[in-house]
């Protein structure tokens, strides 16, 4: 437990960490970080408690970077700085810790963000789950960005950047006994570059952005409708799902629209730019991006799904527990 008390042991643990994340701000080794950014900034904070910590296509470290970077991106900001908190459970192999830290470093580099301050605590065995991460991000708002659920308008189109459900299934598939024929990899990815390209070109005509993490695409649609006070309709047939993800969901009785993603987002844009925005998304690394639906005045506050066989089904916010309703 000695690592947590701030003494020599802690020093020993953290020394290489400083080295790993080395940058001028961090190298100051002050109690906090002093940085300068443009006039308007976005701040977000998030905790990461995924189990297992390593999974196909990623690990908790990448997730901690992407999650925070993406939350900044969804505000219409260019991510600049991260503050990182680590809570380690006693007994975590140093090799695992190192793997996670390297992964954080790599992801941060890929996203061009600097980790400028941090904190580490060690908790007794049984009081944590190997490793918990917490990251706070600061980003510079794009001057044209005006992203808010209140800006969603009737007539707007809803864009999605790629096939859904892979992350949640990848996590499930490394749980005991639940593996599928072909390995499904997490879709964890940074989204800020595509978002900034959209903002660069279309500015305020991008009305709303939201990454579809826990609760999946369906939950984001339901929230967007509720917060924006408009009616949303999406078409099941237009929402891309990779074949392996689809059949895994079928086997597990899950609806891919409610499965978590870590690299998927929805953009609600003015109808006149929908096609161009789609082309831009496809060029920016999302070849399977699609226009999945529209915003209307009907049924305000509700998101509905047009099923493949016709007829509409409301997309409720994911209930806490999935209990069968069918009699």
């Amino acid at each position: 437990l000695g690592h947590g008390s701030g003494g020599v042991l802690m020093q020993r643990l953290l020394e290489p960490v400083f080295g790993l994340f080395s940058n001028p701000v961090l190298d100051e080794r002050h109690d906090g970080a002093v940085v300068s950014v443009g006039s308007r900034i976005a701040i977000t904070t998030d905790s990461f408690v995924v189990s297992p910590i390593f999974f196909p296509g990623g690990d908790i470290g990448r997730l901690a970077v992407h999650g925070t970077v993406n939350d900044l991106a969804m505000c219409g900001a260019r991510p600049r700085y991260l503050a990182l908190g680590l809570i380690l459970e006693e007994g975590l192999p140093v090799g695992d810790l190192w793997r996670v830290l390297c992964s954080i470093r790599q992801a941060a580099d890929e996203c061009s963000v600097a980790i400028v301050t941090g904190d580490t605590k060690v908790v007794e065995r049984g009081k944590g789950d190997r490793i918990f991460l917490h990251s706070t991000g600061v980003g510079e708002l794009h001057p044209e960005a005006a992203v808010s659920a209140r800006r969603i308008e009737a007539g707007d189109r809803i864009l999605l950047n790629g096939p859904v459900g892979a992350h949640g299934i990848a996590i499930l598939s490394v749980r005991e006994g639940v593996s599928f024929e072909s390995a499904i990899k997490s879709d964890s990815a940074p989204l800020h570059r595509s978002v900034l390209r959209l903002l660069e070109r279309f500015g305020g005509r991008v009305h709303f952005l939201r990454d579809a993490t826990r609760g999946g695409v369906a939950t984001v649609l339901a929230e967007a409708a509720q917060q924006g006070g408009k009616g949303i309709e999406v078409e099941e047939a237009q929402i891309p799902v990779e074949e392996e993800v689809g059949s895994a969901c079928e086997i597990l009785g899950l609806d891919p629209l409610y499965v978590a993603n870590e690299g998927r987002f929805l953009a609600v844009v003015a109808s006149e730019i929908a096609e161009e925005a789609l082309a831009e998304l496809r060029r920016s690394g999302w070849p399977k991006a699609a226009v999945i639906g529209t915003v209307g005045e009907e049924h305000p506050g509700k998101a509905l799904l047009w099923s493949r066989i016709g007829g509409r089904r409301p997309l409720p916010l994911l209930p806490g527990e999935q209990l069968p309703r069918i009699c």
Partner: protein
Amino acid sequence: MSSEIAARQIHLDGKVQGVGFRPFVYRLAREAGLVGWVSNGLDGVHIRVQGEREALDRFWEALLRKHPPIAAVTHSEIREAPLGTDSSFVVRESSQEGKATVLLLPDLDLCESCRSEMHDSKNRRFQYPFTTCTDCGPRYSIIRGLPYDRERTTMEPFPMCPECAREYRDPADRRFYSQTNSCPTCGVRVDLLDSGGARLASGIPALDEAAGRIARGEIVALKGVGGYLLLVDAANPRAVEELRRRKRRPTKPFALLFADLESIRREARAAPEEERWLLRREKPIVILDRREAGGSLAPGVAPEEDTLGIMLPSAPLPSLLLDRLAGPVVATSANLSDSPILATEREIVASLGHVVDAVLSHNREIESRLDDSVVRFSPFFRHPILLRRARGFAPLYLSEGFELDPEVAILAMGAHQKSTVALAHQGKIYLSQPLGDLESWESQENFRATLSHLRRLLSFVPKRIAVDLHPGYASTEAGRGLAGEWGLRVEKVQHHRAHFWSLLAEHSLLWEREPVLGVIWDGTGLGEDGAIWGGEFFLWREGRMERVAHFDYLPLLLGEKAIREPRLSAFGLWHSSEGLRERLEEKLLPVERRIYRALLARGDFPRSSSVGRLFDGVASLLGLADRVSFEGEAARGLERIALRLCRALGGVGAVRGREPYPLPSFPSGGVVGLDGLRAEIARDLVCGVPSEEIALRFHLSLASLVGRIVEGVGCRRVALGGGVFQNGLLVDLIEALWGERISVYIARELSPNDESISFGQMVASAWGSGSLRRVRS
């Protein structure tokens, strides 16, 4: 001689509007030589009569005894009134004053007088598809407001021609004060449209052309009383298959519409009580045993089934169409899967334009959407079992044996599937037609629309709102929303308790001094302990309902998926049975096997006591259904093969002596263990015992358990409810085994399935607030 003149003020309430009540009162008063008036109000019929005392007394007696047979008086009041100056007896303008308490009348089929006029070439209504009189025609489906008068129905856009108006004013005429009165000159127009909505023909030529198209194998949508039906020639296999393909309905049996009883008798065997139900004024679909030989129907009408769902026309339009055809037609509700029946031309063209070849429509609007009602009979004792209580019944419910406090105003929101709403209002009960499975937005919209229609009609302001315990039911959510709006608290009623409450009220068992056991076997419903219930035993004793036993909790692998896939129930029940390993595993892909075993080993599944899922599991194990396309498909398959064997053996009496599978009758800790039943079914299967034998023994085991538990808890009355008791063989076996020793109660006016949940919730709330009173008849 007391020839003294007096006056009386009378108020009658109940089924007194839309039944020819004012004309009846008018004639009665005139015959008795009385003066005064009769008027419809929101709370029923008001009458003022003046004349000789003796004549007044005779009038009063006749009023209550000789009223039209379809009328029903639930409340009557007479008091002395001051003498007035009326010089004759008149029908007065309806009054909009007072509280709306009148019962809403269901739709009535064509009466015999109107039918013969329609077939009389010299009558001015010859071949007129909308002929009605005070004794027949649409009611609830066209009512927009109360009191019941033409201007508050969808007949409002059709002013009467002089000839119709004369009938309307003529006390001697059958159409005196008939609100739906019309004729070919002034009335509703029938049109034939193409699948894009363009008009092809009108009037009689439209009927001829529609019939011609059906005869040629086309799919024609017909505007019925409560919505459109899709019709095809039932004898044309290609047409039937085409309808299945276009409607994406692979196996669920289609209902059939026949012209008359004689033609029904050629295809099906109907017992006398079944024939009576076919002819009833509600004109429900009756599930009849199909004749083995001589049938001319296409096999695709009801694949696999030993039964046929058959009805007679409930309105003149389908009747006239059938007159033009050589045989029966398939008549299935026109809707998208899981959505309400379509009721406007716009909807049918937009949603089913690709399914239909033509549309036989008309320009009278449908205000309330209603499906056809469905009834089946238990195979041996011929108990009617209502599977759907809709057109012809809704929204009327007349309680027998109990009364509601007029002060109590309860809104009960019902279940999620087969949803209905129930209202307790001014001492009356209104029970809506089934509003479908609330998965689809369209069903939810129809649910909301129906609820607000009923509220507006009755100026209903609830003081209590009852909902299911399940937070995810769309009906529960809607109830919470309304409660929030009106500042009320919701009362949660557990699903299976609601089933039992419904039975206790229907049979006036609430005040029973002896205990009553409620055996509630169902699909799934959320239980009070978080498990999924559905195999429950409740004891009603001294005004309290206690859960005394339940079936053991078993894996409900993958939740809702298990409900669509009985193979998962089979796997969940028998996965550890070595002898069945191969049989079970061939139902699963290798990856499914691996994953499902892992989930079972980890205990990662909801737990359920559902008897519905037990039926599913046995049905799948016997190879009857691994995946189902409609609710109850697997259980029905199991009942079917068991019933075949039971009949071959000579009926329920003949199987009484057979050995049931072991089910503990004195459950330890209130849990009915299934180990013995599972082990013996597995053993039978491995030994090659035929499926029919296993299916029958399974039914017998459940029937035997019921009585043993009743006697075990020391009571003599048992009420059977929940979706499982749509199974007529099970009902009859229970009666055969226990009927002499135990009183068995099943749903009578209501359905055993979730349609009755709202009624049960309403009863629970009313009982809780002390608003129910027993009445002895």
